[in-house]
Each structure stands twice: as C-alpha cells, then as structure tokens.
C-alpha cells in the first residue's frame, strides 16, 4: 500500500540527527528521500554504535544509529568543493519538491545554496533549514548541540533533582523535538504548495521549537514574573507523583495520583514576595542547651547567620535556640551560659546589620513565675525594635508539660520536665513590617487548626520554627517536613521550616519541597517566598467534610459487609 507522501521527492543534506530524523519520518510515510553525503568528510553518525564495536573494515557501513535513522532513503555521495559536485546537487534540486539541510547558515551561503539560489533552479522548491538558533539573528551562525539548545530554550533550567543543578537529557533531546516540528513544517509547506503551486523557505530554530513546548514556565514568567524551580519528579497538582525504587538492581516504578477535585480547588493568590533566609546553626544531633550548652547553640546560630546573603527581607531562626538563664546574683557570668540581655543585644545587632526582620526562638523560665517555662518567637525589626511575640499555644505533653503531673511523678519523676510550659493564648501570627507571618511552632504544625488560625488571622506565609535536636535518626524530622507540606497544601500558603540540626525546608503552597537541608550541617536556605492571600476549601471548612466522608465510607463498608453475609 503506498504511503500518503508517495510522489514527494526530498533532497536531504543532513547530518547527525535533527534533519535526518525528520526526513526519516517523511520517508517512512512514502516520500522519496535522497540523502547526500560528502565524499571528503565522513558523517560522524556513521561511526556511532558500530555493530559489535568492531571498527575493522568498513565500519562506516555498520553504524546501528545511522541505519535506523536513514532507512527508506536513497544515498548519494558528492564532493561539493568541486563545481561538478555542486552541479549534480543543483540538478537534483531541479527535480525535487523539498530540499532540507542542517548546517550553519555560513556553510549554506558559502555553497550558494540559499533559498533564493535554489528558487532560480526550481521555482516551487520548499527549502527547510534546521539550525540551533535560527537562520538569521545574532546567534544564527553559532553551532549547537542538543544540550546547548536544551539549555538555551529554558528546558534544562527547569529540570533537576530537588536542591540540585539543572540536568540534561542523556540524548540530544531537542534534535527530536525540533525534528518533530520539522516534519509538521514540511507538511504545512507541502499543503500550501498543493493548493497554490508555490514553494517557500522554512527556518527551523531548534531552540524556538523547544521553547514552544514549555508554556507552563514561560507563560508563568510572562504573566506572574515567576522563575521556575527544580523539584525532581514532583508535579504541580498530582501527589504522590514520582519514580520509586523496586526490588532488584535499578528497577523503578512511576506513580502519579491525580485527584479530580485538586485541579478545581482554589489555592489563593500571590500578593507579594519575600526574600527569606532560614538559619540552621548545625552541630551533631542532640546539640541543644541541655546538655551541649546554650552558649554553643547560640554561637552556632550566630555563625550560620554570618552567611546570610543580603538583601534579605526576613531571617528565621529555629525554635528554642535562645535559652537564657537568669542573671546570677553574684554578677559573675558563666561562659557556657547565655544571658537574656547579651542575647537580645546580639540579635538586635544582627537585625540591624542585615537590615531585615529577624525571628528568633526563645525558651526560658518565666521570670514572673519560676514554676513555668516559656517558648516563643519574637519579631525584631530592621531598626532593632521588637514589635511582636508569639507564644506556643499547643504544647507537647510529657515534653513540655506533664498531664496529671502529681500521678505521673510518682512513677517517672526523673524523666519529666521539671516545669510546665505556660501556653500562649494569642493568634498564631507575628505582625511585622514585611507582612503578617503565621507561626506554628514545631509540634503545633501537626495540628491543622493552628495554621488555620494563622490564615484566618491574615497570615500570608507560615513559619514553622522547630527544634528536633533531641531526636536521633531522622524519623521525626521527616514527619515535620511531611506535616509542613500538608499544612501548605491545606492553607495555600508557603511553609518554611527551620531547625537547628535539620531538617530545614522550604515548601511552596502546593506542598512541594523546594529546598531542604541535611541533618547536622550548618546551613542557610535562601529562597524567594510568596506572600499569599485567599482561602482554600480546607481553610474555609476545616476538618468536618473529611470527618463526614470518613463516617460515610465506614458506614458504606459496614452495609456492604452485611449484604455480603
């Protein structure tokens, strides 16, 4: 059965992939493709993947890739440096419908093979040139490889593991993308010629063709000024979405879960952006005031803070890294202890130095009630004034307070905190000159009502200062990140998590982890974070729809079970 392109004759002066691949597609559909090769210069694709790697004898006739890509074509060798060679090429053009090539314009001009030249030989010829950056323009004569155009087009910038650099495809990917567009272009030109009898010049920029396939990021930049992020295999809507290991060596499965409602759910809108720095003081796990020493913890934080890059709007410190003790009555200060006035002075100086709002986490005995502790974050303005304070509302049972203390003390007195934490009662926000910041301190992030409280009080971003330094391994820290992601998805706000020995993380409003530290390292995460407004369904309705659905599901299962028995 003849292919649809039976009767179309194409002269191909192609090399490597972009044009030969496209012409293969046309040849497969019935076009007669006459491929030209130089007698002087071996097409390097001929020596690619040679059969059994045996390069003895006529290896150029054993290249797997060459043969796969040039099937269904006729092959002709020519020496275009000789006038007779060029004349044969012109004769071929005079009986052709399409002439295609992928050399730089400089080469084509040198041979006198531009569209204007060919039209004189064959008035209705269609000429197709495929170049890295296009046939005209300041970069037109720049040679290019697939990776170069993948970089120029904006595709590589978007692709990479979380927290890593850009990653390229291991094949010249854009050769194929542009090749696919080349096939379409030839067909469009052939359709036009069929109707009007006229040929034309088709100018394929491999970069342009590729940029045309990433509107998600280019339109987002165009409309919202947002530059993309690299976040591994995560998706903007689907979750889980990724490539997961299976049993065996290098065996993987991809999983993508789409929720019908997810695409319809409102996620609020951006009102502004903040340049944020999350400061992780570092040190081995269990580096904390007891037993390591409050002065060491604080010094670690200050040391990390010296790496904060300016300009920056907001600098966030973890929970419980400023642990002052009461001033000694003797007046002698211990070097390994931290005193409130010293700490406040140092923090003020840092806020002024960085010209940023600084949010440190304090933990100490309540000066007005020696039987209670306090755990809070303050907000220090760039001029050094403390403008707001949030005291942790939801405290950790047995970690920060002991329920039924008199009973429990009888059996486990040594393992209990000596004093209960005095919980706060205020809204979960800090009011600062860089906006209203929601706060969920550590354990609080496991409770949806805390972040909902923040959002209903106008929070545009959520801070999750946490500690976790007393844990070993990383289960709890991993749960913290997961909880931050959940809260981000629920509230449509970015959540930033800061911990002294990890994990610190930046999570966007769709729950994607954009950056994360490792445990124990001293690190500063810099990120431009969106301030967002608007209410999501979860923020509006809370947990009752889920509770009702769960009850219905349980009831349904019960009914189904009864019917079966």
């Amino acid at each position, binding site marked *: 059965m003849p292919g649809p392109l039976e009767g179309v004759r194409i002269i191909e002066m192609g090399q490597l992939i972009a044009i030969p691949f496209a012409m293969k597609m046309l040849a497969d559909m019935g076009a007669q493709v006459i491929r030209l090769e130089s007698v002087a210069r071996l097409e390097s694709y001929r020596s690619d993947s040679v059969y059994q790697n045996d390069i003895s004898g006529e290896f150029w006739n054993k290249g797997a890739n060459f043969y796969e890509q040039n099937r269904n074509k006729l092959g002709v060798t020519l020496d275009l440096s000789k006038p007779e060679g060029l004349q044969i090429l012109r004769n071929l053009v005079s009986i052709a419908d399409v002439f295609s090539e992928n050399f730089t314009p400089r080469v084509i001009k040198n041979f006198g093979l531009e569209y204007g030249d060919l039209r004189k030989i064959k008035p209705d010829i269609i000429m197709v040139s495929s170049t890295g950056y296009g046939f005209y323009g300041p970069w037109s004569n720049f040679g290019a490889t697939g990776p170069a155009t993948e970089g120029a087009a904006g595709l590589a910038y978007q692709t990479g593991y979380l927290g890593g650099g850009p990653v390229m495809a291991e094949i010249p990917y854009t050769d194929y993308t542009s090749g696919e567009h080349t096939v379409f272009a030839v067909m469009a030109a052939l359709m036009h010629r069929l109707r009007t009898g006229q040929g034309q010049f088709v100018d394929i920029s491999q970069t342009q063709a590729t940029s045309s396939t990433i509107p998600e990021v280019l339109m987002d*930049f165009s409309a919202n000024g947002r530059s993309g992020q690299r976040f591994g295999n995560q998706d903007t809507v689907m979750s889980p979405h990724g490539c997961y290991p299976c049993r065996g060596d290098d065996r993987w499965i991809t999983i993508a879960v789409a929720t019908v409602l997810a695409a319809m759910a409102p996620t609020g809108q951006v009102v502004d952006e903040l340049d944020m720095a999350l400061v992780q003081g570092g040190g081995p796990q269990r580096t904390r005031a007891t037993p390591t020493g409050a002065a060491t913890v604080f010094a670690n934080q200050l040391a990390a803070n010296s790496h904060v890059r300016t300009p920056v709007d907001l600098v966030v410190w973890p929970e419980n890294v400023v642990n002052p003790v009461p001033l000694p009555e003797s007046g002698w200060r211990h070097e390994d202890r931290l005193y409130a006035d010293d700490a406040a002075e140092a923090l003020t100086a840092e806020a002024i130095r960085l010209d940023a709002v600084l949010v440190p986490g304090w933990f100490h005995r309540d000066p007005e009630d020696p039987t209670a502790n306090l755990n809070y974050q303050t907000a220090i303005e760039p001029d050094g004034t403390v403008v707001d304070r949030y005291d942790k509302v939801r405290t950790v049972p047995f970690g920060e307070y002991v329920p039924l203390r008199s009973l429990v003390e009888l059996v486990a007195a040594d393992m209990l905190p000596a004093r209960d934490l005095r919980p706060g009662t205020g809204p979960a926000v800090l009011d600062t000159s860089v906006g209203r910041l929601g706060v969920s301190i550590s354990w609080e992030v496991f409770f949806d009502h805390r972040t909902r409280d923040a959002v209903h009080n106008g929070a545009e971003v959520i801070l999750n200062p946490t500690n976790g330094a007393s844990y070993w391994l990383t289960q709890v820290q991993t749960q913290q990140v997961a909880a931050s992601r959940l809260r981000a998805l629920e509230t449509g706000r970015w959540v930033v998590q800061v911990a002294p020995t990890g994990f610190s993380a930046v999570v966007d409003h769709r729950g994607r982890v954009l950056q994360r530290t490792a445990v124990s390292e001293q690190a500063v995460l810099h990120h431009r974070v969106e301030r967002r407004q608007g209410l999501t369904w979860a923020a509006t309705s809370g947990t009752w729809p889920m509770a009702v659905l769960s009850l219905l599901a349980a009831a349904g299962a019960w009914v189904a079970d009864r019917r079966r028995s």
Partner: protein
Amino acid sequence: MTERALEGVKVLDLTHHISGPYCSKLLADFGADVLKVERPGGDPARRMAPFLHDEAGPEKSLVFAYLNTNKQSVTLDLKSEKGIQILKSLVEQSDVLVENFAPKAMPSFGLDFEALQEINPGLVMTSISNFGQTGPYRDYKAADIVEYAMGGLLYISGAYDREPLKHSFNQAQFKAGTDAASATLMAVYHQRLTGEGQRVDVSIQEAVATGLRDVVNNFTYSGAVRRRQPNHSGDLSRLRASADGHLIPNPGIGAGLNWNTLVEFLDLPELDDEKFDTPSARLVNAEELGRILDKYFIKQNKYERFYAAHEKRFIFGVVQSPKEVMADPQFEARNYFVDIDHPELGTLKYPGAPFEMSSTPWEARTAAPVLGQHNQEVIGARLGHTPDQLAQMRAMGVI
C-alpha cells in the same frame, strides 16, 4: 491578509488537556479553521495552573490560553442526543476530526470512525491516546511521567545512582501533539489528492519511544541495555556551573577538536600537558581535568564565555532561566515572543512561532476563546438554530 499554509483545512477539535490541543494549535496557528468543541463545563485545561496572578478561573489558565490560540469554541454535551446530532452536522462540514479521549469514549458516543465515515467519507480522524487504540494497554490511564517511563525515556534520564528523573512538565504530551499534527496533515494531503479519508492513531507512548537515539538500536544490535551514565567529570560536553548559573562548554565534535586552540582560548596553561592532549589521555585523567575545568568555569560569566567561544567556533551553550529566555537577543531579533490580547488576561507575551515560514508565517489572529464564545455564530447561525432553540439547549445543558 497574509497567506496561510493551511487555508481551507477545517478541523473539528474534540480535544482537551495538552496533547490534543497542541496538535490543533499547530494547525490553527498556521491557518486551519479549528472549531474546539468543549463539554459544557469546559476543557479541564481551563482549570490548570499556572493562572494569571494565581487566581483560578475558567478564563485565567495561562497554559490553556497558550494552547488554544486561533481557535473557536462551542460547548456541546456529547452524552445528549441533541449534542450528538449537532456534532454529526459539524462532522459533515469538516476535513479533520481530532480527539484525545480514552479509546473507549468515541465508540460509546456512537462516534467511532466507521460511523463518522458514513457521514463524511473524506474525513480524517486523528485520535491521540496514552497507548494507542489497540493492544493490551489501550484502556490504561497515564500521566506524563508514566508515558516517559513506558516510552523508555525515563530510564536513561537522570543520575547513574539515583532515581530516574523526568523533564519538567508535559514533554510527552507535546511530542504526541506535534506528531499528531504532522500525521494529520499527511492524511489531509492524501485526502486532497485522492478524496479518501482515514484514521490516524497516535500513541503517546510511541511518540516518546520514537526519539530514543541509541537505546533500541544498541539493544537490537548487541543486546546492550543503555542505562543512565555515570558522571565523567572530564567529559567536555558536560554541563558546568558558572558564577551566574550554568553553561555547556562543549568545544565541538571530538575528531575536529584542536586541543591547543582550546587551551589557548581558556587561557589555562596547566591543560597544555600530555595528560590531556589526546581524547584517550583525557579519559585517563578525566578526574583531574574535570577539577581544573570546574574550578575555572565557576568563576566565569556564562554569556561572556558563550560569546567568546563562538568567536572561535567552539559550540558552547548556555542554560537560560525563564527570565533569560525572554530577554534572549536571538529570540528578540526573531520576534519569537508575541503580544496577544485576551479579554480576561489582558495583553501578555506568548511563545510564538515554533519555526518560521517565509510565505505563510505563523500568526496570532485571535486569543484563546472564552468558553462557548462561538455558540451563537456556529450552532446558531451556521447550523440554523434560533436564539430560542439555543436558549433551550443551554437550559437543558446541551451547550
């Protein structure tokens, strides 16, 4: 009026999401008349992020706006009898029908190819689906990452010792959309010559598998399984960090490379050493070479090195951020980004011509249609329904 390559090609577009709309966008942008038929609730892509200022709304999706330029929109419920009747009269007036439903959907509407051919024997019916219209996987659902995996591209992408890594966003859908547009035109070309229509069956999985370079060939030739490659730090074609981002300081094809010229260009006399001056020596001393190059490029400005390299005909590349792409002087000289005015989105810059045609240029005639914008014009005026009938259809949810 500019001449259009696909003038007179009438496309009935039943597609949604990305692959199908990109196919019909290519056709529309080069002059075909594309009538997009949406379910009364609209193409789900209308609810796809990103949105202008992140405000979700049926006319606010930026990807939808990009994918549906130059099209008309009517709404139609294909589960209603009246809807099917209207669709069939539209089929009579079309050269092409494109759809990307699950393979079982069109037959369930009574709109399988055989039925459509009875209405219009010259019809080209293009179907895009995850795994094709036949075969054991035909009814499987898939996301882009699944197509990457099943098409064979995922396994060779990413770091040697990590999980395979997919290109961001929806490359598999765009590949299939482009292939579908080409295949559709091949069939229309054939139809113009012979009057015969035919069925075009595009599998997204196959579209991915078509561009794998040596993966299949190496296996069939030698049984070798191509895996993600270990990172050779001395590999000259590798991407490297610069002071301001990343670049691909690839000097050129191996055989043609003159090492001394490169050493001189980089002004790195330590590379003027027999440890590095042949390809095999560079392979042996790859680690050391990689360290020297990394140390050097991290202090460089990527564009400065890029331009300087091309003066010497080294084919360096740059990794551009979205911002840099949109400020790219080459794109600017070629007017790649174009302003399109949309009633709800205002005037925005869109990626424009994927390639240039000298006589029949790419053009943005109209912005993406709002939902059902052409119901009156097409279902009303063209098919002869009165305003009352339209109102009734609207009330019944047919349009």
